[in-house]
């Protein structure tokens, strides 16, 4: 069958199992959009307001569904607008395939209109990228891009297609759907050592990261923990891998983690890091982290071993398979004393309690949100205080229900990501918890949510300040509030209405229930402007570069 490059691209995407793409048209992708026109019944195209929104949407789609997110943009500014979204996906190991058009081959290198070297720009923030020079290589490149994006540790891949390549004609043969490359095989002596260390341990702790969710190992994690009575804490990326009501779940670890999770790292004699990378937000002081513990690091990416914190026993491979292998060797263990100690600590020192009074404290609002939304809800966040309070207090019941830019910390990530999550799961409640700072960055995507009929609830915790930066100015810069009191005059209720969405305002605690119930029932996109205290700080906090001993509990 003779097809042009654009038809080949669209057909190759369909052959790789794609049914949804997020994008924005432009000069260099006119051919591709023309081919898309014929395949609208097979590929749904979600038109965002801005290419950044498309990249975040592809990311949110991938994180919430486990499938590959695909975004499409034109050359030049279209391509550079994807960059923050690609970097976000790279830092959090999210499989996305970004497709950019470029100017025709004969115009490349001449500083042509809307020309940019996007392959060069995205080299450090992609697992790999391609410039397709010959239409004959296009179908295989698409298949390879999906293979790379999904194999072992997932991540973004970019394909740049010059306009003449998207027009050139060649014979098309359908390629089979990509297969993931085999995971590294576990080294037998490492496994033996790990099993011995686990059998020796009196105070074991699991530190679970995003890799558990990638590897689809949440069931095995829970089973392992139950069988061996090993408490679990999660990095931000690991949240939602363990159900909130599991008795040995300690909550989030690290800078804004729970007191008990951080206390456990100080006292554990064995830490099993599972698909986690000991980032500076977890191990602020790399030398002091889990000093008394033997560290077993289970990861599919060998370069994570001892990258930040020296590891005693590396187990390189797929987390799901490794957990199963460990469970074959270790049937049951009892760590009653250790579990009791942690339980006791947890009841004595928990997360800060919500403030009393009729004003809203986001803590109990978020804590009780789960009861209103149910287990099925997908919670998306932006970046800042609201993100950390959500991570601390929300009761996550199912894997892939917490969607947040944890590595890159991209303010403005949330609305695009929520669009992606809702597109993947139209029947599940999707709530974006944001702050007025973050939401201002990419609120243009409300236009997309409305035109796509995506019933996303945007809950803006509005304190008129850039809360997290301001908090650091309070704690570490003598309250010199440089450029963090933003005092916008945006009326979010009117804004919602202007976009064609519903707008609500919550000023008092007593209003929460009625507003939330109405917002959920309407199933229409809406913005809820929720007024909160600008001086509120997220506690506990382990100051940057410090260890769990230096935790500040706050008020």
């Amino acid at each position, binding site marked *: 069958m003779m097809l042009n490059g654009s038809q080949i691209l669209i057909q190759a995407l369909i052959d790789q199992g794609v049914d949804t793409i997020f994008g924005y048209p432009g000069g260099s992708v006119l051919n591709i959009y023309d081919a898309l026109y014929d395949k609208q019944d097979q590929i749904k195209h979600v038109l965002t307001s801005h290419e950044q929104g498309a990249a975040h949407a592809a990311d949110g789609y991938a994180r919430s569904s486990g499938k590959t997110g695909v975004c499409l943009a034109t050359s030049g500014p279209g391509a550079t607008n994807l960059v923050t979204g690609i970097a976000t996906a790279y830092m959090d190991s999210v499989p996305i395939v970004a497709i950019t058009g470029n100017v025709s081959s004969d115009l490349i290198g001449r500083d042509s209109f809307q020309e940019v070297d996007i392959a060069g720009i995205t080299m450090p923030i992609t*697992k790999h990228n391609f410039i397709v020079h010959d239409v004959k290589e296009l179908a295989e490149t698409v298949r390879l891009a999906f293979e790379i994006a999904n194999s072992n540790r997932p991540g973004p891949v970019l394909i740049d297609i010059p306009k003449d390549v998207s027009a050139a004609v060649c014979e098309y043969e359908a390629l089979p759907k990509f297969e993931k490359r085999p995971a590294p095989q576990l080294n037998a002596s490492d496994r033996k050592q790990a099993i011995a260390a686990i059998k020796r341990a009196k105070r074991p702790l699991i530190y679970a990261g995003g890799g558990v969710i990638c590897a689809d190992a949440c069931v095995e994690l829970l089973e392992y923990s139950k069988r061996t009575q090993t408490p679990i804490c999660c990095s931000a990326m690991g949240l939602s891998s363990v159900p909130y009501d599991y008795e040995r779940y300690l909550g989030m670890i690290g800078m804004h983690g729970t007191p008990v999770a951080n206390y456990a790292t100080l006292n554990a004699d064995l830490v099993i890091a599972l698909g986690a990378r000991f980032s500076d937000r977890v191990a602020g002081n790399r030398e002091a982290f889990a000093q008394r513990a033997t560290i077993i690091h289970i990861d599919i990416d060998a370069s994570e071993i001892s990258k930040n914190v020296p590891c005693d026993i590396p187990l390189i491979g797929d987390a799901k398979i490794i957990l199963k292998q460990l469970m074959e060797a270790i049937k049951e263990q009892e760590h009653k004393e250790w579990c009791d100690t942690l339980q006791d600590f947890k009841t004595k020192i928990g997360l800060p309690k919500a403030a009393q009074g009729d004003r809203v404290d986001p803590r109990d609002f978020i804590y009780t949100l789960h009861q209103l939304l149910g287990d099925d809800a997908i919670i998306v966040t932006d970046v800042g205080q609201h993100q950390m309070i959500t991570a601390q207090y929300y009761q996550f019941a199912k894997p892939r229900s917490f969607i947040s830019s944890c590595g890159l910390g991209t303010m403005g990530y949330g609305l695009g990501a929520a669009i992606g999550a809702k597109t993947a799961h139209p029947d599940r409640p999707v709530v974006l918890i944001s702050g007025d700072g973050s939401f201002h960055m990419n609120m243009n995507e409300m236009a997309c949510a409305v035109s796509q009929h995506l019933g996303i609830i945007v809950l803006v915790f509005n304190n008129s300040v850039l809360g997290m930066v301001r908090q650091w100015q309070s704690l570490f810069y003598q309250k010199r509030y440089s450029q963090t009191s933003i005092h916008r005059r945006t009326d979010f209720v009117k804004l919602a209405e202007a976009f064609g969405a519903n707008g609500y305002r919550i000023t008092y605690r007593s209003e929460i229930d009625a507003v939330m119930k109405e917002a959920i029932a309407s199933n229409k996109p809406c913005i809820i402007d929720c007024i909160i205290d600008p001086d509120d700080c997220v506690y506990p906090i382990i100051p940057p570069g410090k260890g769990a001993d230096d935790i500040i509990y706050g008020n």
Partner: protein
Amino acid sequence: MNQKKVVLSLLVLNHFGVLTRVTNLFSSRGYNIISLSVGETENPKFSRITIVTSGEEAIIRQIKLQCAKLEDVKAIQEVKDQELYMREVVLVKVKVNYMKEEDFIRFVDANQAIAKQIDQQLYMVEMCASTQSVDAFIDKLEMFEIVEIVRTGGCALAMSVGTVYDEQ
């Protein structure tokens, strides 16, 4: 901490952009490049990059693992000191006074270098040797007048039965 100097030999796909990917990785992660050379191999599909780098043991390990993650890098071999066979080329333009011409020719011969006359009193000197010998040669050349120098990075193979293909 103990800094270690290491010679890495990378087998990479022979297409454009590969060298950029490798050097980008070094600069974005703050790794050191002491010297680098690249060229095609016996199989036109592949190139070999020889990188001399330095760092603590843990950093060297990271460098190897991070390079291995690059899609275009097919194998990485650390060439051990005792098996290292490394050569680099230096070209030097030298001005030689009439009075010293005989000394110069003798000096070049003694060092197994080659000299070609460009102009009166002006010579092109070339030498292919280990990095240390090249360093020493340049030092001694200072007794004449050096006009300009260019030298390649080292290229290396292991003096062993094993090859980079064993690391694939």
